[in-house]
Protein backbone atom coordinates (compact mmCIF):
# COMPACT_ATOMS: atom_id res chain seq x y z
CA UNK A 1 0.00 0.00 0.00
CA UNK A 2 1.32 3.46 -0.88
CA UNK A 3 2.34 5.53 2.11
CA UNK A 4 0.78 8.94 2.61
CA UNK A 5 3.22 11.54 1.35
CA UNK A 6 4.18 14.67 3.27
CA UNK A 7 1.26 17.05 3.54
CA UNK A 8 -1.39 14.42 2.76
CA UNK A 9 -3.38 12.00 4.88
CA UNK A 10 -4.69 8.50 4.28
CA UNK A 11 -8.27 9.79 4.24
CA UNK A 12 -7.17 12.59 1.89
CA UNK A 13 -5.68 9.96 -0.44
CA UNK A 14 -8.90 7.98 -0.30
CA UNK A 15 -10.92 11.08 -1.15
CA UNK A 16 -8.60 11.84 -4.08
CA UNK A 17 -8.87 8.26 -5.32
CA UNK A 18 -12.66 8.36 -5.01
CA UNK A 19 -12.73 11.66 -6.96
CA UNK A 20 -10.49 10.12 -9.64
CA UNK A 21 -12.79 7.08 -9.91
CA UNK A 22 -15.83 9.32 -10.23
CA UNK A 23 -14.16 11.49 -12.90
CA UNK A 24 -13.05 8.36 -14.80
CA UNK A 25 -16.59 7.01 -14.57
CA UNK A 26 -18.08 10.32 -15.78
CA UNK A 27 -15.71 10.42 -18.75
CA UNK A 28 -16.52 6.81 -19.63
CA UNK A 29 -20.28 7.42 -19.54
CA UNK A 30 -20.21 10.85 -21.17
CA UNK A 31 -19.80 9.60 -24.73
CA UNK A 32 -22.28 6.74 -24.35
CA UNK A 33 -25.84 6.78 -25.63
CA UNK A 34 -28.09 7.93 -22.79
CA UNK A 35 -31.27 9.25 -24.37
CA UNK A 36 -32.86 10.84 -27.38
CA UNK A 37 -32.70 14.22 -29.05
CA UNK A 38 -35.92 16.19 -29.11
CA UNK A 39 -36.79 14.79 -32.58
CA UNK A 40 -37.26 11.40 -30.90
CA UNK A 41 -35.37 9.71 -33.71
CA UNK A 42 -31.68 10.29 -33.05
CA UNK A 43 -29.96 9.13 -29.91
CA UNK A 44 -28.11 11.50 -27.60
CA UNK A 45 -25.00 10.91 -25.52
CA UNK A 46 -24.89 11.64 -21.81
CA UNK A 47 -22.74 14.70 -22.52
CA UNK A 48 -25.44 15.98 -24.90
CA UNK A 49 -28.17 15.29 -22.36
CA UNK A 50 -26.27 17.23 -19.76
CA UNK A 51 -25.61 20.12 -22.13
CA UNK A 52 -28.29 22.74 -21.38
CA UNK A 53 -28.00 24.14 -24.91
CA UNK A 54 -29.05 20.85 -26.53
CA UNK A 55 -32.76 19.97 -26.34
CA UNK A 56 -33.25 16.31 -25.43
CA UNK A 57 -36.09 14.14 -24.14
CA UNK A 58 -36.27 12.98 -20.54
CA UNK A 59 -36.64 9.25 -19.77
CA UNK A 60 -40.25 9.82 -18.79
CA UNK A 61 -41.02 11.27 -22.22
CA UNK A 62 -39.73 8.23 -24.12
CA UNK A 63 -42.06 5.62 -25.53
CA UNK A 64 -41.67 1.98 -24.54
CA UNK A 65 -40.05 1.28 -27.91
CA UNK A 66 -37.57 4.12 -27.49
CA UNK A 67 -36.66 2.94 -24.00
CA UNK A 68 -36.12 -0.63 -25.24
CA UNK A 69 -33.93 0.63 -28.08
CA UNK A 70 -32.00 2.85 -25.68
CA UNK A 71 -31.31 0.02 -23.23
CA UNK A 72 -30.35 -2.36 -26.06
CA UNK A 73 -27.93 0.26 -27.42
CA UNK A 74 -26.37 0.63 -23.99
CA UNK A 75 -26.11 -3.12 -23.49
CA UNK A 76 -24.42 -3.43 -26.89
CA UNK A 77 -21.73 -1.03 -25.67
CA UNK A 78 -20.92 -3.19 -22.65
CA UNK A 79 -17.81 -5.39 -22.74
CA UNK A 80 -18.26 -8.83 -24.31
CA UNK A 81 -17.68 -10.48 -20.93
CA UNK A 82 -20.52 -8.48 -19.31
CA UNK A 83 -22.70 -10.61 -17.06
CA UNK A 84 -25.23 -10.12 -14.34
CA UNK A 85 -26.92 -12.72 -12.12
CA UNK A 86 -30.46 -13.16 -10.90
CA UNK A 87 -31.75 -15.65 -8.35
CA UNK A 88 -33.66 -17.90 -10.70
CA UNK A 89 -32.41 -17.14 -14.19
CA UNK A 90 -28.80 -17.36 -12.86
CA UNK A 91 -26.04 -15.85 -15.02
CA UNK A 92 -27.12 -13.65 -17.89
CA UNK A 93 -24.51 -12.71 -20.48
CA UNK A 94 -24.53 -9.79 -22.88
CA UNK A 95 -26.23 -11.65 -25.74
CA UNK A 96 -28.98 -12.97 -23.53
CA UNK A 97 -29.45 -9.62 -21.80
CA UNK A 98 -30.06 -7.96 -25.18
CA UNK A 99 -32.44 -10.74 -26.24
CA UNK A 100 -34.42 -10.53 -22.99
CA UNK A 101 -34.81 -6.74 -23.25
CA UNK A 102 -35.89 -7.01 -26.89
CA UNK A 103 -38.40 -9.72 -25.97
CA UNK A 104 -39.85 -7.65 -23.13
CA UNK A 105 -39.52 -10.62 -20.76
CA UNK A 106 -39.53 -10.25 -16.97
CA UNK A 107 -35.74 -10.54 -16.99
CA UNK A 108 -35.64 -7.89 -19.69
CA UNK A 109 -37.86 -5.58 -17.67
CA UNK A 110 -35.56 -5.90 -14.66
CA UNK A 111 -32.54 -5.15 -16.86
CA UNK A 112 -34.36 -2.07 -18.18
CA UNK A 113 -35.11 -0.95 -14.65
CA UNK A 114 -31.41 -1.27 -13.75
CA UNK A 115 -30.27 0.65 -16.80
CA UNK A 116 -32.86 3.38 -16.23
CA UNK A 117 -31.79 3.70 -12.58
CA UNK A 118 -28.23 4.11 -13.83
CA UNK A 119 -29.24 6.76 -16.38
CA UNK A 120 -31.23 8.70 -13.80
CA UNK A 121 -28.25 8.65 -11.44
CA UNK A 122 -25.80 9.75 -14.16
CA UNK A 123 -28.08 12.60 -15.25
CA UNK A 124 -28.66 13.68 -11.65
CA UNK A 125 -24.99 13.70 -10.68
CA UNK A 126 -23.96 15.23 -14.01
CA UNK A 127 -26.29 18.18 -13.48
CA UNK A 128 -24.94 18.93 -10.02
CA UNK A 129 -23.04 22.22 -10.01
Amino acid at each position, binding site marked *: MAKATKGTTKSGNRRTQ*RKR*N*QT*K*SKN*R*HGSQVAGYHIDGATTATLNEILDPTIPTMSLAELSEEQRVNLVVSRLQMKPDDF*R*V*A*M*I*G*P*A*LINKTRAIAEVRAGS*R*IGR*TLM*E*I*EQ*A*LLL*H*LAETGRKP
Partner: protein
Amino acid sequence: MSTFIAIDSSDATDTQAASSYREGNVYPYLESKGFAMSPFFGPLARRGFVAPAAASPGVTLLTGAGHGTYTSFIGFNFEPVYAVDAYATPEVSGKIAHFLSCDNALYLGPNFVKNGCLAYIGYDDNFTFDPDSADIFFKCDGQIDCGLADGLTVGDAVGRAKDVFNQAIADLRAQGNTYAASVLTVNLSHLRSPLDGSQWGRVDAKLS
Protein backbone atom coordinates in the same frame (compact mmCIF):
# COMPACT_ATOMS: atom_id res chain seq x y z
CA MET B 1 -33.90 -21.50 23.29
CA SER B 2 -35.33 -19.85 20.20
CA THR B 3 -34.84 -21.74 16.94
CA PHE B 4 -34.56 -20.53 13.37
CA ILE B 5 -35.32 -22.62 10.32
CA ALA B 6 -32.69 -22.09 7.60
CA ILE B 7 -33.77 -23.25 4.12
CA ASP B 8 -31.13 -23.14 1.37
CA SER B 9 -31.74 -25.18 -1.76
CA SER B 10 -28.20 -24.56 -3.10
CA ASP B 11 -29.00 -26.48 -6.28
CA ALA B 12 -27.90 -23.90 -8.84
CA THR B 13 -25.00 -21.46 -9.14
CA ASP B 14 -27.14 -18.47 -8.21
CA THR B 15 -28.65 -20.01 -5.09
CA GLN B 16 -25.30 -21.57 -4.15
CA ALA B 17 -23.68 -18.13 -4.12
CA ALA B 18 -26.37 -16.75 -1.84
CA SER B 19 -26.43 -19.79 0.43
CA SER B 20 -22.68 -19.88 0.71
CA TYR B 21 -22.65 -16.31 2.02
CA ARG B 22 -25.52 -16.92 4.41
CA GLU B 23 -24.10 -20.18 5.75
CA GLY B 24 -20.70 -18.56 6.27
CA ASN B 25 -21.87 -15.29 7.78
CA VAL B 26 -25.54 -14.85 8.56
CA TYR B 27 -26.44 -18.15 10.25
CA PRO B 28 -23.28 -18.19 12.40
CA TYR B 29 -24.19 -14.66 13.55
CA LEU B 30 -27.67 -15.79 14.59
CA GLU B 31 -26.09 -18.73 16.45
CA SER B 32 -23.61 -16.42 18.16
CA LYS B 33 -26.60 -14.51 19.52
CA GLY B 34 -28.05 -17.63 21.10
CA PHE B 35 -30.42 -18.85 18.39
CA ALA B 36 -30.38 -22.56 17.54
CA MET B 37 -30.30 -23.42 13.85
CA SER B 38 -32.48 -26.08 12.32
CA PRO B 39 -30.78 -26.42 8.90
CA PHE B 40 -32.46 -27.59 5.70
CA PHE B 41 -29.75 -27.36 3.09
CA GLY B 42 -29.56 -28.94 -0.36
CA PRO B 43 -31.84 -31.98 -0.72
CA LEU B 44 -33.26 -31.30 2.76
CA ALA B 45 -34.71 -28.03 1.51
CA ARG B 46 -37.98 -29.72 0.65
CA ARG B 47 -41.43 -29.33 2.07
CA GLY B 48 -41.60 -32.82 3.60
CA PHE B 49 -38.64 -32.02 5.85
CA VAL B 50 -39.27 -28.34 6.53
CA ALA B 51 -43.00 -28.37 7.34
CA PRO B 52 -42.93 -30.45 10.56
CA ALA B 53 -39.86 -28.62 11.83
CA ALA B 54 -41.40 -25.21 11.17
CA ALA B 55 -44.48 -26.16 13.17
CA SER B 56 -42.40 -27.28 16.15
CA PRO B 57 -42.45 -25.28 19.39
CA GLY B 58 -39.70 -22.69 19.84
CA VAL B 59 -39.33 -21.75 16.17
CA THR B 60 -39.40 -17.96 15.79
CA LEU B 61 -37.77 -17.30 12.40
CA LEU B 62 -38.09 -18.82 8.93
CA THR B 63 -35.23 -17.73 6.71
CA GLY B 64 -33.33 -18.90 3.66
CA ALA B 65 -32.29 -18.38 0.07
CA GLY B 66 -33.86 -19.97 -2.96
CA HIS B 67 -35.78 -19.44 -6.14
CA GLY B 68 -39.15 -17.81 -5.92
CA THR B 69 -42.27 -16.92 -7.80
CA TYR B 70 -44.96 -14.40 -6.88
CA THR B 71 -46.78 -17.15 -4.99
CA SER B 72 -44.05 -19.49 -3.76
CA PHE B 73 -40.66 -20.01 -2.14
CA ILE B 74 -38.91 -22.83 -3.97
CA GLY B 75 -36.64 -25.43 -2.40
CA PHE B 76 -34.46 -28.21 -3.73
CA ASN B 77 -35.18 -29.55 -7.21
CA PHE B 78 -37.71 -26.76 -7.81
CA GLU B 79 -40.10 -28.15 -5.22
CA PRO B 80 -42.14 -25.37 -3.55
CA VAL B 81 -41.48 -25.34 0.19
CA TYR B 82 -44.10 -22.66 0.71
CA ALA B 83 -46.87 -21.64 -1.66
CA VAL B 84 -49.95 -19.49 -1.13
CA ASP B 85 -52.47 -21.39 1.06
CA ALA B 86 -50.50 -24.63 0.67
CA TYR B 87 -49.14 -24.95 4.23
CA ALA B 88 -50.49 -25.38 7.75
CA THR B 89 -51.04 -22.21 9.80
CA PRO B 90 -48.78 -23.35 12.73
CA GLU B 91 -45.82 -23.35 10.33
CA VAL B 92 -45.94 -19.57 10.06
CA SER B 93 -48.12 -18.33 12.90
CA GLY B 94 -46.29 -16.20 15.48
CA LYS B 95 -43.06 -16.27 13.45
CA ILE B 96 -41.04 -13.82 11.37
CA ALA B 97 -40.13 -14.85 7.82
CA HIS B 98 -37.35 -13.49 5.63
CA PHE B 99 -36.43 -15.04 2.28
CA LEU B 100 -33.64 -13.98 -0.06
CA SER B 101 -35.63 -14.95 -3.08
CA CYS B 102 -37.29 -13.38 -6.10
CA ASP B 103 -40.87 -12.21 -6.28
CA ASN B 104 -42.64 -13.87 -3.36
CA ALA B 105 -43.13 -10.71 -1.32
CA LEU B 106 -45.95 -9.95 -3.72
CA TYR B 107 -48.44 -12.68 -2.77
CA LEU B 108 -46.76 -15.25 -0.50
CA GLY B 109 -45.68 -12.64 2.06
CA PRO B 110 -49.16 -11.18 2.59
CA ASN B 111 -50.57 -14.72 2.61
CA PHE B 112 -48.17 -15.65 5.44
CA VAL B 113 -49.30 -12.59 7.40
CA LYS B 114 -52.97 -13.39 6.79
CA ASN B 115 -52.25 -16.76 8.41
CA GLY B 116 -50.65 -15.33 11.55
CA CYS B 117 -47.05 -14.66 10.51
CA LEU B 118 -45.83 -11.66 12.55
CA ALA B 119 -43.85 -10.13 9.71
CA TYR B 120 -42.61 -11.06 6.26
CA ILE B 121 -39.55 -9.51 4.61
CA GLY B 122 -38.54 -10.25 1.02
CA TYR B 123 -38.54 -9.03 -2.58
CA ASP B 124 -41.47 -8.42 -4.91
CA ASP B 125 -39.43 -8.76 -8.11
CA ASN B 126 -36.21 -10.34 -9.34
CA PHE B 127 -33.23 -10.19 -6.96
CA THR B 128 -30.28 -9.35 -9.19
CA PHE B 129 -26.59 -9.24 -8.34
CA ASP B 130 -23.18 -8.61 -9.82
CA PRO B 131 -21.44 -12.00 -9.73
CA ASP B 132 -18.08 -10.27 -9.26
CA SER B 133 -19.20 -8.51 -6.09
CA ALA B 134 -21.97 -10.88 -4.99
CA ASP B 135 -21.09 -10.84 -1.30
CA ILE B 136 -21.84 -7.11 -1.10
CA PHE B 137 -25.39 -7.86 -2.24
CA PHE B 138 -25.89 -10.77 0.15
CA LYS B 139 -24.37 -8.80 3.02
CA CYS B 140 -26.97 -6.03 2.57
CA ASP B 141 -29.82 -8.54 2.66
CA GLY B 142 -28.23 -10.48 5.52
CA GLN B 143 -28.34 -7.39 7.71
CA ILE B 144 -32.05 -8.06 8.13
CA ASP B 145 -31.39 -11.36 9.95
CA CYS B 146 -28.47 -9.85 11.86
CA GLY B 147 -30.61 -6.94 13.04
CA LEU B 148 -33.30 -9.33 14.21
CA ALA B 149 -30.65 -11.39 16.01
CA ASP B 150 -29.50 -8.20 17.73
CA GLY B 151 -32.96 -7.83 19.21
CA LEU B 152 -34.17 -5.06 16.91
CA THR B 153 -37.79 -4.83 15.87
CA VAL B 154 -38.54 -5.72 12.26
CA GLY B 155 -38.90 -2.03 11.45
CA ASP B 156 -35.52 -1.17 12.92
CA ALA B 157 -33.78 -4.24 11.44
CA VAL B 158 -35.06 -3.40 7.96
CA GLY B 159 -34.18 0.26 8.49
CA ARG B 160 -30.63 -0.70 9.44
CA ALA B 161 -30.40 -3.02 6.42
CA LYS B 162 -31.57 -0.19 4.16
CA ASP B 163 -28.78 2.00 5.55
CA VAL B 164 -26.29 -0.76 4.67
CA PHE B 165 -27.78 -0.99 1.15
CA ASN B 166 -27.46 2.78 0.70
CA GLN B 167 -23.88 2.84 1.98
CA ALA B 168 -22.95 -0.03 -0.35
CA ILE B 169 -24.58 1.83 -3.28
CA ALA B 170 -22.55 4.95 -2.43
CA ASP B 171 -19.34 2.90 -2.10
CA LEU B 172 -19.85 1.14 -5.44
CA ARG B 173 -20.48 4.48 -7.15
CA ALA B 174 -17.39 5.94 -5.53
CA GLN B 175 -15.40 3.00 -6.92
CA GLY B 176 -16.77 3.72 -10.39
CA ASN B 177 -18.90 0.55 -10.41
CA THR B 178 -22.08 2.44 -11.29
CA TYR B 179 -23.76 -0.57 -12.89
CA ALA B 180 -23.51 -2.72 -9.74
CA ALA B 181 -24.70 0.29 -7.74
CA SER B 182 -27.80 0.51 -9.94
CA VAL B 183 -28.45 -3.22 -9.57
CA LEU B 184 -28.36 -2.80 -5.81
CA THR B 185 -30.60 0.29 -6.06
CA VAL B 186 -33.22 -1.74 -7.91
CA ASN B 187 -33.05 -4.58 -5.36
CA LEU B 188 -33.56 -2.07 -2.57
CA SER B 189 -36.61 -0.62 -4.32
CA HIS B 190 -38.15 -4.11 -4.42
CA LEU B 191 -37.49 -4.95 -0.76
CA ARG B 192 -40.87 -5.31 0.98
CA SER B 193 -41.47 -5.36 4.71
CA PRO B 194 -43.95 -4.10 7.28
CA LEU B 195 -42.39 -0.66 6.70
CA ASP B 196 -44.30 -0.65 3.39
CA GLY B 197 -47.66 -1.66 4.85
CA SER B 198 -49.41 -3.92 7.30
CA GLN B 199 -49.97 -6.57 4.62
CA TRP B 200 -46.37 -7.57 5.40
CA GLY B 201 -46.99 -7.63 9.13
CA ARG B 202 -46.04 -5.59 12.14
CA VAL B 203 -43.10 -3.20 12.34
CA ASP B 204 -42.81 -3.81 16.09
CA ALA B 205 -42.45 -7.59 15.77
CA LYS B 206 -39.20 -8.99 17.11
CA LEU B 207 -37.61 -12.37 17.74
CA SER B 208 -38.36 -13.70 21.18
